[in-house]
């Protein structure tokens, strides 16, 4: 099972320029997570801070009990061996051909013979569709190939955590789809924890188990995919739909005058740039038939069902609908029943969201997450509705 990454109160600034502050999230072991965010919000900086390439001002990033931010250099190098990182442009060593690039970690860190190394390297190159290109230099291949070679190199040490910085940027939609499938297949095969940083909406909708979003120097939210995909948070909505109307502007922040003007133009019939409404939970990408089932999915199901009643109603609905009828019976939930439950702060047995449920895995196999709810957006005034803001206590806390 992949390692768990717990990030608490991480804050980073360059000189006076704050990049983001108080980012708190947990990457559940063996699950695929996506971090969304407009360009320049510090997604790459976030990845680099997670692996100790940049030093955050404050906060913790704990992997296997080691705090990357504070630990000794020796520990840092040891812990980094758990990571496989795909950099934005592949970051291949320009002076080595693809074969040597992919063999590099093996030669540095293992005592394997060249025959064994050859076997592993060729396997990873084949996996990423680079068979036959072993002798090419990084300067001689396309950006997409460089990216895949970078991924192959990140995989040779069988990492427990895989970080990908914009695996889709510079790739055409077809290659992006292949890469998404590759990541899901990988997860099914080695059960690694995966974090993908991207601004590709399609990847965000179909690949991950969990989605987070960085905006205006903050983590807007992080939680099960259904929460973000059904969110009515303006930033999230705008981003998912690629619209101009909303808080995200060409520059980092938009002022209210511009927002009002754009709204006016849109009301007058000017097209706002979006293609179609792509909100809502879409089916998740499945591993290629023949591969083992993803362990993370089962663990996540138990985990999410445990915190189900703390999620927004739309997300609850999305989650319940994604279950098979059999699973719905097992967890004791039914679709379209959330309307009655959403007012109950502590759901009773008849509601759709039991306060206690029996997952299909024994407790020790369920991800134990400190604070494993979702990090909701800061409450904002809701004109008129005054709907519930999901403050219900977590199981075990409210006392039963």
């Amino acid at each position, binding site marked *: 099972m992949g390692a768990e990454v717990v990030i608490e109160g991480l804050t980073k*600034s*360059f000189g006076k320029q704050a990049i983001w502050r108080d980012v708190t999230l947990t990457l559940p072991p063996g699950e695929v997570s996506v971090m969304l965010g407009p360009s320049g919000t510090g997604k790459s900086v976030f990845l*680099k801070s997670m*692996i100790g*390439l*940049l*030093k955050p*001002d404050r906060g913790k990033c704990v992997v296997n009990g080691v705090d990357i931010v504070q630990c000794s250099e020796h520990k840092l*190098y*040891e812990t*980094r*061996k758990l*990571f496989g*990182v795909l*950099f*934005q*442009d592949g*970051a*291949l*060593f*320009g002076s080595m051909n693809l074969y040597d690039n992919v063999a*590099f*970690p093996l030669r*540095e*860190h293992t005592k394997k013979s060249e025959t064994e190394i050859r076997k592993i390297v060729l396997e990873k190159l084949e996996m990423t569709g680079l068979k036959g290109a072993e002798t090419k230099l990084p300067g001689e291949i396309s950006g997409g190939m460089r990216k895949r070679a*970078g991924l192959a*190199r990140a995989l040779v*040490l069988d990492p427990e955590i895989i970080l990908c910085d914009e695996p889709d940027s510079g790739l055409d939609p077809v290659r992006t789809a292949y890469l998404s499938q590759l990541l899901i297949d990988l997860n099914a095969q080695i059960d690694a924890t995966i974090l993908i940083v991207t601004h590709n909406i399609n990847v965000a909708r179909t690949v991950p188990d969990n989605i987070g979003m960085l905006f205006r120097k903050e983590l807007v939210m992080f939680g099960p995919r259904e929460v973000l995909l059904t969110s009515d948070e303006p930033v999230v909505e705008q981003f998912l739909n690629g619209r101009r109307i909303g808080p995200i502007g060409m520059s980092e922040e938009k002022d209210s005058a511009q927002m009002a003007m754009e709204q006016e133009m849109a009301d007058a019939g000017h097209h706002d740039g979006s293609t179609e409404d792509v909100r809502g939970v879409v089916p998740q990408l499945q591993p290629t038939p023949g591969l083992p089932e993803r362990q993370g999915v089962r663990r996540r199901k138990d985990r999410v069902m445990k915190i189900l009643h703390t999620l927004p109603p739309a997300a609850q609905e999305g989650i319940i609908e994604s279950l098979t009828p059999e699973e719905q019976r097992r967890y004791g939930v039914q679709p379209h029943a959330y309307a009655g439950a959403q007012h109950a702060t502590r759901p009773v047995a008849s509601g759709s969201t039991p306060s206690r449920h029996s997952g299909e895995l024994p407790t020790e196999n369920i991800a134990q997450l400190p604070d494993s709810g979702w990090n909701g957006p800061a409450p904002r005034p809701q004109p008129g509705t005054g709907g519930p803001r999901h403050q219900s206590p977590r199981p075990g806390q409210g006392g039963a």
Partner: protein
Amino acid sequence: MTAGASTARFPGIGMLRETGKLFALGLDVGRGIFQRPFQLREFIQQSWFIASVTILPTALVAIPFGAVISLQFGSLARQLGAQSYTGAGSVLATVQQASPLVTALLVAGAGGSAICADIGARTIREEIDAMEVLGVSAVQRLIVPRVLACMLVALLLNGMVSVIGVLGGYFFNVVLQDGTPGAYLASFSALAQLPDLWVGEIKALIFGFIAAVVASYRGLHPPPGPKGVGDAVNQSVVITFLLLFVVNFVITLIYLQIVPTKLG
């Protein structure tokens, strides 16, 4: 690799911080030299590379350098009626001062700029980050072999410049200034002594170290943006020149204090 989060602010703090980081890198390199595994392949490749970019220019610079010294010194000595010391004078000047400086200029200008451009390109292509993330220390893997290679090449170049300088001096003195070959050679040991050669070689080693560390430092931390690496190379050469001349001055002073000159 880390961005300082200190809040102290006064004029010159930036320069102090950079200097501190430069020293830290120097210390890291010093420590890395003794850490295993030693990157023999990289060391040999780099030695070959640095030698190949410096040998020809060094030879070309060394000949006129030796000639100028010997011409100047020769005419001065003749005016003072000390022709018999011409050979000794040029050897002393060449071995002790000129050759370490010529070496330094070329190691910094040709070797250092090549190192800085190479490391800088790797930095902006995130190769250095990738290496660190693969659990391999870039200082140990890339910088240490380059520093050692630079020191080795500086040592060799220094020897080469000394030889070429002395030969050039001989040629110009004997052929152009009608000096006698016998007197030129005989006076070698009148003023010069073996420690002169050693201090020249020690200087060359130190210069090689400084040039490589400064070049690597600027390469690892280039200014942001596409112009960054170019600027870094430029700065590394200028900084190295300044440092080398200061260090040369200090070493020469110390040497003259410690080692008694031959004729008192």
